Structure formats: structure tokens, C-alpha cells
């Protein structure tokens, strides 16, 4: 085994084509062990498809996924280290999933993961006050989210992916989830990839953010670094233009004589001084809106 491939999950030129649509396109990325990644993108950006290929739940049209240098496809050893706890959708498929009891669903999931920790699953079931005797189609969206969280946590997989884990959870449960995640992370150093639309409240949890747009990787960067090079500049239009000339500019808004733009500094670039403009820092949601909003 090469040193460079230890404890990594790597995808190269990963592509998924459906009949008339490319869901994921030439995706190149390395996930390191011991980080919490946030995966963000608009609906239909390809997040779920990407995660399902990274966990071998869905075959790629082209490209490869490697765990520590081994192709993960039909590779039980590699897959025992990867867990993708999917969002449970009852309505969309007639597979009879809805008739399954929660307990059975969790039990089935447990069989896939050799490092499954039943004590942890039981503890979370109790904490969440989840009635596991109920059928999935009798559970609320929040309770289904809890089940996906239980499966992800108890899998004890080195690389664990969660797709919209907090969708449907109330604010108290969301807060609890982030703390649970951080506790598990600090104790074990597992890698987590978390997709979410509730960007702002999760952004402090992500060490790195992976942004996807139209099936492609837009950026993958340390969250703090990204925020520290992103600014909203506004003022008299000519002044803003003079200041931002030659910079990476997004999301321009002009109202009368005023103009606002979002700039992303390049490496080594500094904000020019001496201009009569207002400079505001941005949060992750605003950076996302600047890069993936309707104006772009």
C-alpha cells in the first residue's frame, strides 16, 4: 500500500449518466480520515448520486472510487468501512419499505456493517424516544431522520455519509444531532460527510465544505479559509468597480448609483485599501448564494 493512499477515500473522473441527464460529471476528490465535510448544493446538483457512488450503492457510468487504494466496487472489505445512511423515502417507491417496522429496518442495516455497535443504537433509540415497533409509513419525517442518524452513528464506519440528516428535525433535535456528531467525531476520528440545506447552522461543524453545482465539483475548501476570502463590497458603482477590477466577482447587484458585489480573493490576494466602500464579511450561506444563486 502506498503511503499517500492510507486512510483516504478517493474518486477519480467519477461520472453518472442517466438517459438524458448527467447527474455527476468528472468528479475528482479526496476525502481524508478524521474530518467532517459539509456537502452543499442545490436540489438536483447531484449530491445524493455522488454519495451513493462513493458507497457503491449505485454503479458509476465512468470513473473509480478507491478506499486506501482499493477499488470499492464489489469489495466487501472496503465497503465495511463506508456507510451511506440514506434519507428514507416511503412515498416514492412501491417497494413495501413503508410496511417495514423501524426495528426491522435498523436490524437489516446492522447486517451490512461488521463494526455495528448495537449498544449505541439502543441508547439513541431511547434518547430519541423512537417507537421501533411502528411501521416506517407510520413515522413522521423527523422520526425517519432519527433512524438514518442511528444507522449512521451505530455503523461505526470510518467513512460515514449522511444525506440531509436534520431535515424534519426540530431545532432542539438538530442541536442535539450536531453535538452527538461532534462527540462521536472527537472520540473516534471517523470521517463524516453531511449534506444539508440548512447551511448556516451547520457551517461551524464543517471543517471543510464541498460545493456542488450541476453535477460538478465547484469547490472543496477549509470552511474558515473560504469565509476569510469572501466579502460583500458595496458603495458608489464606479468606486466598487475600481476597487474590484481584476478580482473574482459574483452576484452583482445594481440599484441606482450603488453597486454590491461578492468577491472571492485568490490565494495571496489582499483587499485593496483606500476605497470609500462598505466591506462586510459573509457567512457560508451567503457565499453559497453568491456561487450557486439564480444570478450566477
Amino acid at each position, binding site marked *: 500500500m502506498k503511503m499517500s493512499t492510507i486512510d483516504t477515500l478517493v474518486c477519480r473522473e467519477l461520472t453518472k449518466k442517466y438517459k438524458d441527464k448527467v447527474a455527476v460529471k468528472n468528479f475528482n476528490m479526496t476525502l481524508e480520515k478524521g474530518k*467532517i465535510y459539509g456537502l452543499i448544493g442545490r436540489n438536483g446538483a447531484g449530491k445524493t448520486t455522488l454519495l451513493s457512488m462513493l458507497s457503491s450503492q449505485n454503479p458509476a457510468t465512468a470513473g473509480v472510487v478507491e478506499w486506501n487504494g482499493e477499488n470499492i466496487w464489489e469489495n466487501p472489505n472496503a465497503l465495511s468501512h463506508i456507510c451511506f445512511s440514506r434519507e428514507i423515502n416511503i412515498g416514492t417507491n412501491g417497494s413495501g419499505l413503508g410496511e417495514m417496522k423501524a426495528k426491522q429496518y435498523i436490524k437489516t442495516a446492522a447486517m451490512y456493517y461488521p463494526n455495528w455497535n448495537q449498544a449505541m443504537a439502543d441508547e439513541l433509540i431511547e434518547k430519541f424516544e423512537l417507537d421501533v415497533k411502528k411501521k416506517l409509513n407510520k413515522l413522521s419525517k423527523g422520526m425517519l431522520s432519527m433512524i438514518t442518524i442511528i444507522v449512521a452513528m451505530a455503523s461505526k464506519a470510518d467513512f460515514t455519509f449522511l444525506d440531509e440528516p436534520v431535515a424534519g428535525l426540530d431545532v432542539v433535535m438538530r442541536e442535539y444531532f450536531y453535538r452527538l456528531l461532534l462527540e462521536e467525531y472527537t472520540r473516534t476520528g471517523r470521517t463524516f460527510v453531511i449534506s444539508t440545506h440548512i447551511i448556516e447552522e451547520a457551517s*461551524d461543524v464543517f471543517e471543510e465544505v464541498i460545493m456542488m453545482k450541476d453535477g460538478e465539483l465547484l469547490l472543496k475548501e477549509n470552511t474558515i479559509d473560504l469565509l*476569510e476570502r469572501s466579502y460583500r463590497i458595496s458603495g458608489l458603482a464606479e468606486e466598487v468597480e475600481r476597487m474590484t477590477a481584476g478580482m473574482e466577482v459574483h452576484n452583482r447587484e445594481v440599484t441606482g448609483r450603488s453597486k454590491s458585489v461578492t468577491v472571492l480573493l485568490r490565494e495571496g490576494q489582499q483587499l485593496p485599501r483606500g476605497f470609500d466602500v462598505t466591506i462586510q464579511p459573509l457567512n457560508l450561506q451567503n457565499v453559497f448564494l453568491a456561487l450557486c444563486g439564480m444570478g450566477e
Partner: protein
Amino acid sequence: MNEILTQEKSIYLQIAGMIETDILRGILLEEERAPSTNELAKQYAINPATAAKGINILVEEGVLYKKRGIGMFVAEGAKENILERRRSAFYENYVKKLIQEARSIGLNREEVIDLIRRNGDERS
């Protein structure tokens, strides 16, 4: 440390600032153990790497120091150290902005000084 994290400043700067404030208020004493990265991560629901970045700033400034195998401790003289730095930053952070704003709304120096004096009178 009961403040709420805001979007104004980077989270790690806020973490460093809150630990400093705790030292100034006597919540954390010199030669006492400071909260660990993991404790801060859990308390504020932030990534431990972010918390570590905040702690590292304080180590660089000599406010905290590392005892191997035990954790981070508040340095002797930390309180004085923080006060000195905050005093020297007072001009940059507050006075300069105050003067800038005063100028842009046409208040002259005497008027500003007068306002400051008057504020002092009201409080006494």
C-alpha cells in the same frame, strides 16, 4: 462564557475573545486549566479544528500554555497581558471608528470630546 456566537467575526476569533473575557472576569484564573478543544467544540457545537485555531491564537499571545499530557493552562500574568493588548487595540478598534463616524456626520473634535464628557456626567 455564555455569549452567543455571531456572524460578525470568525468563530475562532470569537472563541479566543471569550476565553480572554473569562480570564478578565476571573471566571478562569491564572495557572488554572482552560477548556480543551473538545470541550469547546461540544459546548459551542463547532468543529474541534476551529476551536483549536482559537486556542492557538492564545498560546501564541502567551495567554495560554500547554502542559504536556494534561492540557491548556492560563499563563501567569495572562490578565495583565490581555489588558495591555486590549488597551493598545482600543484606539484602532474604537477611537478611530468613532472619529471616522464623527467626521462623516460633521461633528468636530470639541463636540466629540464634549459628548464623551457629558456621557461621563450622566453615569455619575
